[in-house]
């Protein structure tokens, strides 16, 4: 069930101030909390993960004025407390959603979105790959090039060439993928607005 509490500029400013006294740092924390909440709701199979993340933030923003002087602990834990309640609500209504999802055929599970969305995704992926620095672009292509044993050997060779261990290579690839993912998100939003 969605709560429409209205999200005014004052409330948003109050929320940012509670997250950090430095507005820029607070903005980054806000983005991180939002994206983490979306992931949590998605792993919980709540259909509208983005909507629920926004609703969580909305509820917290409305409570900040009352709790900021008394609440002890990390603000992020408070967000999670609110999210947990929404997860419980989502679990109650999920049975129906799952039944519908499972009734879908494979045709619709991987290509569930419209053709336009898929085309946008393709365009954005290509665009964002171009935005990566050349060395990073080469790395990400090389990293995903092979399969099975050849993949393991290639990754060992890459790590050796870069003078890092395999775990550091995994982390580096994760960072590149994160950059790519953020770029694709931005690009998709822009494309949708057009």
């Amino acid at each position, binding site marked *: 069930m969605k709560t429409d509490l209205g999200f005014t500029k004052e409330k948003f400013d109050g929320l940012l101030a509670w997250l950090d006294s430095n507005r820029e740092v607070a903005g980054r924390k806000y983005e991180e909390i939002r994206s983490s909440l979306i992931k949590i709701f998605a792993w919980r*199979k709540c259909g509208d993960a983005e909507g629920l993340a926004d609703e969580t933030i909305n509820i917290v923003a409305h409570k900040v004025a009352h709790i900021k002087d008394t609440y002890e602990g990390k603000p992020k834990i408070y967000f999670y407390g609110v999210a947990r309640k929404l997860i419980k609500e989502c679990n109650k209504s999920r049975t129906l959603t799952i039944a519908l999802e499972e009734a879908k055929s494979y045709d619709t599970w991987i290509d569930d979105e419209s053709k336009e969305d898929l085309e946008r995704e*393709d365009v954005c992926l290509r665009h964002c790959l171009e935005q990566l620095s050349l060395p990073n672009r080469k790395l990400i292509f090389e990293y995903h090039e092979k399969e099975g044993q050849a993949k393991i050997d290639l990754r060992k060779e890459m790590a050796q060439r870069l003078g890092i261990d395999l775990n550091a290579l995994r982390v580096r690839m994760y960072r590149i993928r994160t950059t790519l993912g953020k770029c694709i998100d931005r690009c998709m939003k822009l494309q949708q607005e057009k």
Partner: protein
Amino acid sequence: MSEASNDKVRIRRFLLEDLDEEERERVEELFLTDSDTRDLVLMAEDELIEEYLEGSLQGVDREKFRGVFVATPQLRRKVRIAQSLRSLTKADGSHLPTVAESSTQDRITPLLSKPFKSWTRRNLLVYASAAAAILVVLTVGVFWYADYRREQARRLTVERELAELNDPSRRSELPSDQVLSVVLSPVSARSTGSSITPRATDGILELLLLPEIAKAETYSVLIQRAGSDDEFAVPNLRLEDLPAGKAIRVRIPTRLLNRGLYRLRLNGVTPDGREVEINEYSFEVFR
């Protein structure tokens, strides 16, 4: 086992919904509050997707993965993008043209002299039109190719799943409430095939194909839905002694089935290695 690998296992179990509620909430809280945990979970998620796409994630874990990653558009998109990235990599997309490469002509044009310029302008128009046409063809080609790759990948994934499900060495008896068994006789002038209404929830449709002749070493089945280009092959099937008689058993997850008429072509591989068409079967799915 080290603490790090314990964490890795726990995170993996978290992503596959294999933790109890309390432990799950603990991981979620850490995911939100601790940036190291966040990175570890997201890396594990990337690796699971990679394993899924390359087919090394199998059995129960594969099913659990599907259960989670089909549920929301965000996760579906992540899988799709990883799949597209893999396709581009395999197609050697590392040579994507860069903006810098394409702007060389723009820098050269202002250096041309005036009379020469008017002559070249006409030619440039011709060349530009030709280039634009080539660009349009290329763009359409790229989209067509991306569609084609996506379709190929989808078909391969379905065929891999069908092969796994029907592999005699791995096949186990399933609980009766998960399986809908249907005996199919070959299509004849008088038969119209069977009508099937799979349950809405996930299950398995088990087709028992009764062959008219049974001289092959192994069999394969080609499944096709009328009015669709989809055609999936299931290889390495064997004739089994079943309560319904000697039959070839083919299992299909019901979620792969759409409403419509399906045709199955049973081929046999003879002892001398030849593949011959044996029988055709049909069934209709209602939802």
